[in-house]
């Protein structure tokens, strides 16, 4: 891996994003608006807002980073620029690493913004440390980014890339435990949920919001989330082809 190529790629991707202020506004603004909406629809049942507000701090960024990254990477694949990069010296991991750094920093801004709204404006209360929730929200967003990067390899048009969102993201959302506790699901659903990375990211977030316990399970959830990010990025690098048919 080359630090120079990775850094150059991260700067290039961020410069491209900066040229598109509307997308930045959507990335940062939409999760904040949704969090406000959540507070309002549960106005009569504040306990429910407490219950889902914190996990959704991480899940909204997970969804939006998935879409933004998969479309951006798809553009690189279809515009011919990826072919140019693949005929040049940088390694595949340099390219993917650059993308990861760029979008992870966007994810950090996004997760911080939505946390400020939730804790500062909407008065969301969590039992655990707030910075823990923010960090886990960044991890969720980074996971979405890594998965988006990977699945962009299977899309040939931007329509398909957007349609991958319901295909890859919704089942994970339904099964992660937000709507129904995983222990209340049918056995086969639990098995499926255990295989999905978002289940672990959600567990860690929910556990921190509930104020612990921070034992081995919490550490394992965080470790699985980080491992899933690394694996998805590596698979994303593998899908970059030097030679195409």
């Amino acid at each position: 891996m080359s630090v120079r190529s990775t850094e150059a790629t991260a700067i290039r991707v961020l410069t491209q994003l900066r040229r598109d202020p509307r997308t930045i506004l959507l990335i940062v603004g939409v999760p904040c608006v949704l969090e406000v909406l959540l507070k309002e629809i549960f106005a009569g049942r504040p306990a429910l807002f407490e219950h889902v507000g914190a996990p959704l701090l991480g899940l909204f960024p997970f969804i939006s980073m998935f879409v933004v990254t998969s479309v951006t990477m798809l553009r690189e694949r279809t515009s011919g620029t990826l072919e140019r990069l693949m005929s040049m010296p940088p390694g595949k991991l340099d390219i993917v690493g650059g993308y990861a750094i760029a979008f992870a920093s966007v994810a950090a801004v996004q997760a911080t913004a939505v946390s400020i709204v939730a804790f500062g404006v909407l008065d969301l209360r969590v039992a655990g440390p707030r910075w823990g929730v923010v960090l886990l929200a960044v991890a969720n967003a980074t996971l979405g980014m890594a998965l988006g990067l990977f699945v962009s390899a299977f899309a040939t048009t931007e329509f398909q890339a957007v349609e991958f969102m319901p295909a890859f993201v919704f089942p994970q959302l339904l099964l992660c435990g937000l709507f129904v506790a995983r222990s209340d699901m049918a056995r086969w659903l639990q098995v499926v949920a255990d295989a999905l990375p978002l289940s672990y990211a959600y567990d860690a977030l929910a556990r921190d919001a509930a104020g612990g316990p921070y034992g081995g399970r919490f550490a394992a959830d965080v470790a699985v989330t980080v491992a899933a990010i690394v694996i998805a990025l590596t698979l994303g690098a593998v899908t970059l082809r030097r030679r195409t048919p």
Partner: protein
Amino acid sequence: MTPGVQPAAMAVVVDRLRVVRGGTTAIDDLSLSVAAGSVTGLLGPSGSGKSTLLRAIVGVQRIKAGTIEVLGVEAGSPALRSRVAYVTQAPSVYMDLSVAENLRYFARLLGVPAARIDRALESVALSGLSNRIVGSLSGGERTRVSLASALLGDPELLVLDEPTVGLDPLLRRDLWNLFRELAAAGTTLLVSSHVMDEADRCNELLLLRDGVLLASGTPDELRAATGTQALDDVFLRLIEASA
């Protein structure tokens, strides 16, 4: 061979190449070579396999059979990635970045100093546009941004796929002068085109049709072989003879 005269070193040697794309044979049993330091024109109608052959030489095309040697090593070898530059038909640069931002990025990837950027822009007559967003430029200007990006690393082999499409005659002349200058300085250029009046600007010509090499030689050799003057007629003769 005349004693004492060294055979010209070959920058590219293609031997019995076969490429299959989407189930059909795009290139079949093709053998050819490109002399180092030459401007070699790859000519042929669209769909003749020109782009596929160039992609194979650059090492981004999967091949079915045969070998391609580029600058003495197998095409696509990691060692070639800084020695060979490739300009695709569609300008493969970032439309939402400025000209300078594009070139800065590619210069960083190649590990060449930023000072090279000005020189590359000058050689394609784009110095005045360096702060413009590429997406706001004309088609011909975008092509030249792509070309400037390829020049950054002073490649030994420059592979250009239809670099002059959509350019006005003046710019086309300037670019061909640039190609000749680069060749005089030792760079090998392999340029595809379907415009016959550009063929005369080349040292060597390769005529491709349906993935098969119809003829090769200097423009004058091909004229002599077919007994015609205009290169358009030369190619018509060769195509008729092959039918």
